[in-house]
């Protein structure tokens, strides 16, 4: 829990500084909600413990299970927020160019950018499909129930459509020699200020210090 709290204390100010806290929290909750609920149910009712909170049929809900579920879900939230912070503050374009100028292969750089772009791409596709559904009379405005009704038919086509687009896009990129050998002459380089460089080194130093403190027993052992 301490580990997650310390990491959270780093991520949350970052989100606030970047002005993306609300958006990132919404996205992170959406991503972790299914797995978070599963973890909670399995832990609370499946984990043995001496403090029984209540009983549901043959299952005992234990305080130890609740404690475990909270710790896991908090870690998941911090992880999702950290990823959301990265996605919200890094353009795929900057990522590709920066990785490439540091010697990473173009294919790998594009794979990283495509991963970063996957959620916005799927969101765009989902928005288009939702517009089509609304245009054909599906009421997704107003009540929460109405909004939820519109989500279910979105998932399959949004995922399939995005995958189809990715396939076509990879053909188009290959036709434009994206995975060719040799170095590209880049038209621009991303801005990299002194403060950004300092921030990166501080983060690296923080990770090293964190691992060292955990190894020395000052902090709880890493999970």
């Amino acid at each position, binding site marked *: 829990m301490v580990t997650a709290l310390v990491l959270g204390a780093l991520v949350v100010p970052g989100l606030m500084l970047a002005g993306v806290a609300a958006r990132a929290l919404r996205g992170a909750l959406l991503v972790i909600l299914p797995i978070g609920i599963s973890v909670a149910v399995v832990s609370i009712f499946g984990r043995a413990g001496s403090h029984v909170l209540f009983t549901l049929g043959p299952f005992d809900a234990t305080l130890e299970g609740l404690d475990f579920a909270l710790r896991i879900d908090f870690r998941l939230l911090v992880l999702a927020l950290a990823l959301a912070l990265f996605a919200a503050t890094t353009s795929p374009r900057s990522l590709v160019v920066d990785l490439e100028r540091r010697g990473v292969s173009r294919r790998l750089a594009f794979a990283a950018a495509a991963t970063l772009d996957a959620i916005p791409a799927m969101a765009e596709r989902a928005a288009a499909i939702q517009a089509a559904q609304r245009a*054909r009379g599906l009421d997704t*405005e107003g009540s929460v129930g109405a909004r939820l009704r519109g989500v279910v038919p979105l998932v399959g086509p949004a995922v399939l459509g995005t995958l189809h687009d990715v396939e076509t896009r990879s053909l188009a990129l290959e036709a434009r*020699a994206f995975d060719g050998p040799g170095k590209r002459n880049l038209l621009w380089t991303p801005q990299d200020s002194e403060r950004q460089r300092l921030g990166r080194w501080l983060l690296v130093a923080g990770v090293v210090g964190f691992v060292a403190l955990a190894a020395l027993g000052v902090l709880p052992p890493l999970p």
Partner: protein
Amino acid sequence: MLELRGVRYRYPGFERRVLDGVDLTVGDGEIVGLTGSNGAGKSTLCLVAAGVAPGSIGGELEGNVLLDGRPLRGRRPWELASSIGLVLSNPEAQRTRIAATVFEEVAFGPMNLGLPVAETVDRVRRVLEALGIDRLVERDPGRLSGGETQLVAIASILAMRPRHLVLDEPVAELDPEGRRLVIDALRRLAADGTGLLIAEHDRDLLSELCTRVVAIEAGRIVPATIDAFPQAQSGPIRTVQDGSIAIRCSGLGFTYPDGTPALDGVDLTIRAGETVAITGRNGSGKTSLVRHWNGLLRPTAGEVEVVGRSTSGRRVAALARSVGLTFQDPNDQLFARTCRDEVAFGARNVGFRGRDLDAAVAEGLDAVGLADQAGTSPFDLGPSRRRLLAIASVLAMRTPIVVLDEPTMGLDVREHLRVGQIVERVAGEGRTVVAVSHDAGFVSTSLARVIRLEAGRIVADGPTGSFAVP
């Protein structure tokens, strides 16, 4: 020279050969048009000719594809990129999604070829000017109209200056001016010795541009002459003078949240039973205009009334009972497991149940010639049939106003004719049909009134034929 000798090809996981003995030569400086009905193998032939199939997508190829005497087989896509360019029929999916501006998008290919920065910049500037899209240079490629995106996709390949070029329906989404610029650019390339293979339905483009036209039927090349293509024609156009008001826009203005202006003071009245074409250059605001009628977009100025009531405060779902709207890209519109479910979706939402629902679905599918595909997944249909399915899904809602965004794009002559018949039938029932279209042939044979937009304003409005359809 590009040569295909005895080429047979099947996609991975499929038994059927899409190409079954293709022999075709495209000489240096020659422009060969490739036509044929949808599903005959045009797009597949483009992929094979450019080395993408089986090179990138797999599948089984027999026979030989030769580029300047050298077989394509075994050559990596990046090795071919500077020799043979490929423009796919779906421009949106060709975007890199990592470019912040149109300039960067077009520069992507030349950069990959390892060209010096100065040459990349020069090539990009020249091709943007040649295609008349230098005004878009700083725009976000993800915020362009369909036609603008298509021009950028073509520019992206032309900037690589390949010696051979394969284009799959390159002008489908373009306005006449964009079309003219593309034709001129392709002509110049051919004059410089580039060999071009163009898969296209558009008779005018084929007759104007191509030095030779061949057709593909059941995976084989057959001779074709442009004059032999049947003309799409429908019956006499119905005109309406005094029906009740279906749509009224008063001082309609709209600016997108990113600040891009789309509509500026549009005043417009369309009466019940009218058949109306909305035309204009790519990016002139056509799609933005029609999306106001069912509430997908809300005015930032002025007002829209549909069937006598303001759209203000009314939900899209409620407006859908009055206005059925197909989207320009049918891929954005299809989501159900079967064609039957797809067509039933809208009809059910507007209140059809039981036998009425079955009848509406059957009627919609029958109108577009897809009655025998009711159980097929929409995603297993080809692009043109997806477009027809999207039209069926709106017809089944039996709305008093039917709006079709580029309904004939990518359709072959038979399918084109069918859309004309649909317009005639729907208008005959006293319903209003509005089509956003660049297709001058379709507009002149199927629609009675033409409205032309420029930069978000109506600049011409009158009976078909009273002014040139842009």
